[in-house]
């Protein structure tokens, strides 16, 4: 028998067992939907059993109201704006603190390294809530700033530790050959950073930095303990007025979820773009 004959034989088909209906992905999704629906139903039933009076129809007016053809923003919207304002101011300060800390830690000065280390360890090893209270009760009377800036300072002090690690990792990821190459063409240290290192390091830092922004938005809820009127505080005030705790907390959680999940998707997009460039 020649080799040609063997080749001409059709390859034997391996009969895969057909997937049963309960092995299909659709069934998995159905299961999931049924489970989540059941949980929601149970919660609603439990609330009803407690005699809870659902008043969802009262919620829209906390977003906005139209009175005499004039649009008036409700407390939830103004709270959301304060939250975003707080996060954006903190983001700038966070990057500044992170940059200074990263440079101090990478410098060859002893006191710089010690200062950076002390800052990082003290942020990492104390709870954010305690930091916020220390800032509010101890630091803000000493330096004399108002509530809003106390919140901004504390949040950026906290997130700055993460930002500094991101910046350090980004700069360290540029190969040493790049530094040596720019030294050999006679660039100064500042010019090396500006023209060689940072253009390579910044795209790498962008996705985790957006992650820091997400964390800032999440952690900004904690400023409600110093009664700064952002989303969570506004929600607590509405509950104190109307006793609609279930509706208000669910709405607030949903608002945070929408913001953070859409930002997370943006991070995913940035990461894919970085990976494509490599």
């Amino acid at each position, binding site marked *: 028998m020649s080799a040609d004959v063997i080749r001409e034989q059709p390859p034997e088909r391996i009969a895969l067992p057909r997937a049963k209906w309960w092995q299909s*992905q659709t*069934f*998995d*999704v159905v299961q*999931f939907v049924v489970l*989540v629906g059941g949980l929601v139903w149970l*919660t609603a039933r439990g*609330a009803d059993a*407690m005699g809870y009076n659902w008043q969802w129809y009262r919620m829209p007016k906390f977003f906005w109201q139209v009175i005499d053809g004039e649009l008036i923003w409700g407390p939830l919207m103004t709270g959301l704006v304060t939250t975003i304002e707080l996060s954006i101011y903190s983001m700038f300060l966070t990057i500044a603190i992170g940059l200074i800390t990263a440079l*101090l830690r*990478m410098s*060859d*000065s*002893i*006191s*710089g390294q010690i*200062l950076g280390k002390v800052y990082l*360890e*003290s942020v*990492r*090893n*104390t*709870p*954010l*809530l*305690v*930091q916020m*209270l*220390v800032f509010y*009760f*101890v630091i803000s009377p*000493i330096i*004399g700033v108002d509530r809003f800036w106390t919140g901004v300072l504390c949040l950026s002090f906290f997130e700055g530790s993460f930002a500094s690690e991101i910046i350090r990792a980004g*700069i*360290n990821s*540029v*190969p*040493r050959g790049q*530094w*040596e190459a720019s*030294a050999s063409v006679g660039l100064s240290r500042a010019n090396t950073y500006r023209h060689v*290192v940072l253009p390579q390091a910044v795209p790498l830092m962008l996705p985790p930095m957006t992650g820091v922004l997400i964390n800032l938005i*999440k*952690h*900004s*809820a*904690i400023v409600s*303990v110093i009664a700064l009127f952002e989303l*969570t505080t506004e929600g*607590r005030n509405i509950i104190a007025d109307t006793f609609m*705790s*279930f509706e208000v*907390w*669910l709405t*607030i*959680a949903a608002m*945070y*979820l929408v913001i*953070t*999940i859409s930002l997370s998707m943006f991070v995913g997009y940035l990461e894919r773009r970085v990976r494509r460039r490599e």
Partner: protein
Amino acid sequence: MPPLAQKRCFKLLDAIILSTVAALIAFVFYQVDSVLAYEWDWSVIPRYLFRRDESTGDLVPNLFVLGVLTTIRLAAWSLFFAAIIGGIMGVMRTSTRLFPRLLSRAYVELIRNIPPLVFIFIFYFFISSQIMPVLGVDEFVRSASPATVTILEWTASPPKLFSNFLSGVICLSLFSGAYVTEIVRAGIQAIPKSQFEAGASVGLSYFQTMRHVVLPQALQRVIPPLAGQFIILIKDSSLVSLISIQELTFFANEIAISTTQVFEVWIFVGLLYFVICYSCALAFGWLERRSEVYR
């Protein structure tokens, strides 16, 4: 990698940093003494660390010490339950079927994208008002034998506060369970695929492969970040003071209000948390390095 730093030496930068720090300290002292005219009284701290029992005259722990103990118990129990939740969810997260993956993904994303504070309030209003009566915790504690009460007192909290303590533990463990899920998932995914295939080729079922081949190896990778999670839990447990669970931050708030020595109390509490967490971090780091040596 930037070029290696030159030999450390005292430079212009050091002079700038040191003088800035010195100026800052001088400014703070000036503000506190002259502008705020704050009356320091550090005797608050030892008074609230230990007190004399009025009937026997013995030294007994006061609010600060009780708070630290509650914080540590909270963190330990929460880590225990979070490890269980995270273990199950983490295995589900790497499952071949879609349903378990969907379920654990939804759990993780939900918890990670809601601010911890909002989660704790939602939890407080929904679950503790509904689940606690159903579980019948209060009846259990009331009818418990003296021996059980003593055990509870040592391992958890005084019987009066037990249901309060329990809702704190459930809240924290649900919350950090999401992070443990990701730790476990990373541990399992770090095991090479050939290990799964080797398990399948000797005829083990999926669960047998998991139990005898994959999980024992994944455990080694999971333990160090789990120890880190304990430190994070000690820090996060301060949040449950907002739903009036009586741990360190809660007591600190009470002491600060009742004595009005705000500066001393908050500085001391910050230091206390730092000492606890930093010593834990050093200890875990040492243990990890030692286990590396013996591997």
